[in-house]
């Protein structure tokens, strides 16, 4: 949305091509939403619905029978539930607003995908803090209300900060997504067929009329909200990391955790975003909206983030040795690379740090299969990274007599697969009801491109 910052889009190649002008864009995106869904969509929804039912089943079983159905033990009391909470915290909102404030013109094509990714993955992530409480029906005790128990939440604890910042982030991500959608809802209200559609989109658009005054206010509001959401997103990732780093366990008790988690969150967010971008590009034949330039930008971002994560991992290991603390040294230099989960550790290194190095080559960067595989590898590798962080520190703690191993149970695996299904279901529904890219931003890019050409 570079015009919002007062700068021209630097390249015509980003403006969606087509002979019909901006109207062609609008009508095309309306058609995506208005025309009946192709059979492939129904098949995909069916698969994801099955996953969602699996999720509901395993959740119900976990709540009804108890956390004993999981593989958690003492000392590994915190396992896959917290892992999934962190992994599903893909920083979609941070990506969208970060690119906006950096004035990257290729942000417009992927902005809505990033924002939707943020909201949907947060919905998945929020299942886990509720679930892993053991008695999730008492979740409301975390909210500071005057209770008959006459106790309050402990606000000095990062777990309570988690609750508050996540609720704030959910609100903020929805607000950002909705704000970007208001003008597109107006377009749908005006051009989608059917009275029901017009009424619903009309209500959602709040009566947006697109006047010059309104656009000026919109531009200012969007800039403010973007800056606020970016700050909050970084805060949320940091607070989630403080759940670990405010403890004493070796491998957790490190001040590098907040920036490390921000890097990991943005990295996994970009990886999943790249997968979604490639999918949407293929399904909608939208290579003129999600152009080579977009893929190039995202591939480079992935490579940069891989190096950022490599730096974080090396610094953590170095400081773990540099402290001289025997427990810390053991964890970083023996337990992780050579302990019971060493296979996972080296798999993480290969998938997340080494595989993206393929993207140095321009030829490989423009191969979409390489991009897809690299993105999937990075996302999977970051799951393994979370596993290493969460599990090894607990299973190889201070006292060797207290060491134990952990293996996930089928119920936990079912919950994870189920959340993948829920994510897919929500994302497919999202694609059916709103345009996958902000139409007004794309039209603005085209307008700016035409202005530059006329000069």
């Amino acid at each position: 949305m570079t015009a919002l910052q007062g700068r021209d889009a630097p390249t015509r190649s980003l403006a969606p091509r087509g002979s019909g002008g901006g109207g062609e864009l609008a009508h095309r995106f309306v058609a995506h939403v208005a025309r009946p869904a192709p059979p492939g969509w129904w098949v995909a929804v069916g698969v994801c619905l099955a996953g969602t039912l699996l999720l509901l089943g395993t959740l119900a079983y976990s709540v009804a029978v108890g956390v004993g159905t999981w593989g958690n033990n003492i000392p590994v009391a915190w396992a896959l539930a917290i892992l999934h909470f962190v992994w599903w915290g893909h920083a979609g909102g941070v990506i969208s607003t970060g690119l906006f404030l950096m004035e990257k013109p290729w942000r417009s094509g992927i902005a809505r995908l990033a924002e939707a990714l943020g909201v949907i993955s947060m919905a998945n992530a929020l299942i886990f803090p509720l679930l892993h409480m053991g008695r999730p029906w008492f979740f409301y005790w975390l909210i500071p209300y005057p209770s008959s128990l006459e106790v309050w939440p402990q606000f000095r604890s990062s777990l309570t900060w988690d609750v508050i910042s996540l609720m704030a982030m959910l609100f903020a991500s929805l607000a950002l997504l909705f704000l970007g959608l208001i003008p597109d809802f107006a377009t749908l209200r005006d051009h989608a067929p059917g009275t029901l559609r017009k009424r619903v989109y009309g209500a959602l658009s709040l009566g947006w009329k697109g006047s010059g005054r309104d656009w000026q206010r919109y531009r200012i509001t969007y800039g403010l909200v973007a800056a606020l959401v970016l700050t909050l997103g970084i805060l949320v990732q940091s607070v989630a990391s403080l759940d670990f780093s405010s403890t004493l366990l070796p491998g957790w008790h490190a001040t590098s955790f907040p920036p490390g988690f921000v890097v990991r969150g943005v990295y996994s967010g970009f990886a999943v975003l790249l997968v979604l971008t490639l999918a949407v590009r293929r399904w909608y034949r939208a290579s003129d909206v999600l152009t080579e330039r977009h893929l190039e930008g995202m591939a480079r971002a992935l490579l940069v983030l891989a190096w950022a994560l490599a730096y974080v991992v090396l610094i953590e290991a170095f400081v773990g040795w540099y402290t001289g603390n025997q427990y810390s040294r053991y964890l970083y230099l023996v337990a992780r690379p050579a302990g019971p989960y060493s296979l996972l550790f080296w798999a993480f290194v290969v998938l997340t740090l080494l595989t993206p190095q393929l993207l140095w080559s321009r030829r490989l960067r423009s191969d979409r299969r390489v991009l897809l595989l690299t993105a999937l590898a990075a996302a999977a590798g970051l799951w393994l990274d979370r596993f290493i962080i969460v599990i090894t520190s607990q299973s190889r703690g201070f006292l060797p007599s207290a060491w134990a191993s952990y293996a996930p149970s089928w119920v936990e695996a079912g919950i994870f697969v189920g959340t993948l299904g829920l994510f897919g279901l929500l994302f497919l529904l999202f694609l059916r009801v709103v345009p996958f890219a902000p139409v007004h931003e794309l039209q603005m890019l085209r307008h700016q491109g035409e202005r530059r050409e006329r000069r």
Partner: protein
Amino acid sequence: MTGETPGTGVVGEFRSAGEMVSALRALREGGYRSLDSFSPHPVREVEEVLAPPRPTFPRWVLAAGVAGAAIAYCVQWYANAWDYPLNVGGRPLYALPVWIPSMLAVGIAFAIAAAFAGLCRGAGLPALWHPAFEVEGFESASADRYWVVVGSDDSRYHPLHTAEALRREGALRVVPIRRDG
């Protein structure tokens, strides 16, 4: 350009943003002041031509953020330092540093809500009807056409001459609109 988007006057439809902007420029040079545009995307030149007053709501966003942080501080202070003080690991009762993350989160949430309210209040949202919506074909304003509106409250407004001025600038159509129907 002061006040709301005019609801009574004439609207003209233009094929492109450039034509709309040059029409606005010509009208402004001709002395018109009650002007606005309708477009499917923000057109930066419109702001340069019409020079609307800069909205003041950002300061309310800041105020809301500070208020949210203050509320979060008060809730935490009351809960953990006044009503039920607990010695947890020797940590101080009045612990501002550990309360800051929650203050930031709540403050930012309040600020975002205020920014939204500022947008809605300034644009008159939600307002599901505007007189321009009555114009046949106005839905092109959200797709591929650019409209100009001249308010009848303008001192230079004349039903025929203003419409003629719009046509001279290349308007495809010129249609009157009225606020009360």
